[in-house]
């Protein structure tokens, strides 16, 4: 593997109040220009990883240990202001819900160009040209009109295209896509997926792709990390994973992925031993306490 562009080392994120960890010593690597899939069931902590990288963790949680390396710079030790600018200049987020991710009272245009002008010090004209170029790339008809529109005048699928254009506009080194198609109509999901994969390949962007759809992962990603209850339980290359999943949970996950052409396949529950293994660890402190008593 090439030298990783994004490298997370032993990241632990916990609730401030109860100190309960939501991410347990998570490590993952993403090489420049590669796509890393991040899968796991709901509540596993997939979004939390993305938020930790982008510095937008909810107020109720905090990072208690670990390092996040981006392009040979450690983010968490940077002063807040410098980190903010660095993240803004080198990363972008493709959000889950295009309907809520655009400011309803501002026109589309400035929402695409503002980062270029304010954070990256581009000239206004250059930023405008770049925004139009990207809107063309994501196949938005009549981009000039769209730039002058308000979000409510644009359909959901179009808005996701706009957000994708906006994410790629600043030439970020890393894009985090957090379930970018789940909020969309099934008919547009595929197009949006192709679009992201296409742009990623063309711009050679590193992409952290959060999803719980293994089918999607198999199409876009080179590597994949499986998350369960805040722990990475498997990190593999895609081919190895589908041929020979190492962890029992991964096998269950694979078995649970519906195969549309195989009506005989049914849902498989999470194997008992996986639950036991993870729970043994989660409840270990309490178990110890109960032994003391």
């Amino acid at each position, binding site marked *: 593997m090439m030298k990783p562009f994004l490298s997370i080392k032993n990241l632990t994120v916990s609730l401030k109040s109860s100190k309960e960890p939501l991410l347990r010593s998570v490590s993952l690597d993403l090489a420049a220009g590669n796509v890393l899939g991040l899968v796991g069931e709901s509540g596993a902590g997939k979004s939390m990883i993305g938020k930790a990288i*982008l*510095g*937008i963790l909810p*107020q109720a949680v905090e990072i208690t240990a670990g390092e996040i390396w981006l392009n040979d710079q450690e983010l968490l030790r940077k002063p807040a*202001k410098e980190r*903010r*600018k*660095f*993240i*803004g*200049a080198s*990363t*972008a*987020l493709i*959000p*889950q*819900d295009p309907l*809520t*991710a*655009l*400011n*309803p*009272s*501002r026109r589309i245009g400035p929402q695409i160009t*503002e*980062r270029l002008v*304010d*954070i990256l010090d581009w000239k206004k004209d250059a930023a405008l040209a770049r925004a139009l170029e990207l809107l063309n790339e994501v196949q938005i008809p009549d981009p000039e009109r769209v730039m002058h529109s*308000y979000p*409510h*005048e644009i359909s959901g699928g179009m808005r996701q295209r706009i*957000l994708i254009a906006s994410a790629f506009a600043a030439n970020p080194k890393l894009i985090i896509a957090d379930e970018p198609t789940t909020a969309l109509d099934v008919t547009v999901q595929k197009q949006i997926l192709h679009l992201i994969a296409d742009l990623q390949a063309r711009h050679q962007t590193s992409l952290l792709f959060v999803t719980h759809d293994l089918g999607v992962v198999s199409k876009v990603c080179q590597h994949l990390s499986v998350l369960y209850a805040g722990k990475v339980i498997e990190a593999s290359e895609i081919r190895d994973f589908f041929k020979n999943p190492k962890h029992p949970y991964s096998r269950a996950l694979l078995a649970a992925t519906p195969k549309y052409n195989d009506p005989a396949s049914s849902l498989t529950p999470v194997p008992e031993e996986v639950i036991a293994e993870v729970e043994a660890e989660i409840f270990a402190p309490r178990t110890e306490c109960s032994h003391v008593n």
Partner: protein
Amino acid sequence: MSLFPTIFLRLLTTLITLFGVAVIIFVIIRVVPGNPIAMMLPPGATDADIQRLQALYGFDKSILEQFLIWISDVVRGDFGTSISLRQPVLNLVLERLPATLELSIIALILAVAIGLTLAITGTRLRGSRFESLIDMTNGIALSLPDFLWALLLILLFGVLWPLFHISGRISPALDLPFTSQFYLFESLLRLRLDLSLDLLSHMFMPALAMAIPLAAIIGQLLKQSLKETMHLDYVTLSRTKGYSENHVIIREALPNAILPTLTLIGVQFTFLIGGTVIIERLFSYEGLGNMAIDAVINRDLPLIQGIVILFALIFTLVNLIVDMSYALLNPRLRHA
């Protein structure tokens, strides 16, 4: 454009409202005890004198007759003559109106500035120990009405530490070059900043007294809606672009969070203008409110009527402006 019929409808309702106010005030001040003529005549006047003057002002006619005469004059722009000041009501009222408008607007600006600061600071501090400090400040500001704040300010900054003027509109010793009654506005236009400063330092205490409770209301409501808005996806997205917390609050969250506050400011601004009646009295500020109290004391019926109609007109205009700016700020309403 759908705005035009809306405005027409609003103007119509405004006229109906004003007519209603005119009827009510006209009847009320004639039903309550107190004879304006008796009050203006010296103690030795005979009943015959009183009768004669009553007839002169038309007070011997029935209330309905009096009203019809008055309203037909008003439609022609004649609001009658003040009994106590013996001048046309319209002139008197228009002469005092600018002073009250300037005071109210300064108070509003103060209230919005303080309220915004409280809301934004509170939003920045959300979740920390210091957030409750902002809530406490709001609570204290709301615990007293404007006229009690006025008394407190007079005691503190007029008596104990005499830092500000607590009486009048402008220092009497100054030469006034003004051609209008909008002293502050005119002094700014003429670049006579010395006069502007003197006017502002007279206005500061009364305006602050009126502003404090409104600032707290603005601060409370706006902080609440800002905090809710801060969780929304587009705010988070803007944060990932590298923008500072202040920028995110002011440019992304504020325009969407401020709409309910704006409506509230509109309603509260009319209360604030109503507050000038007592506040101007307390600070001997030569405005409409101060004149209103004199008019009531003297049972100066034509003057009371004129002042009330003018206040009602201002109130409905303020509401109209608020509704229109609401539509302007919200693109979804504008295109509907």
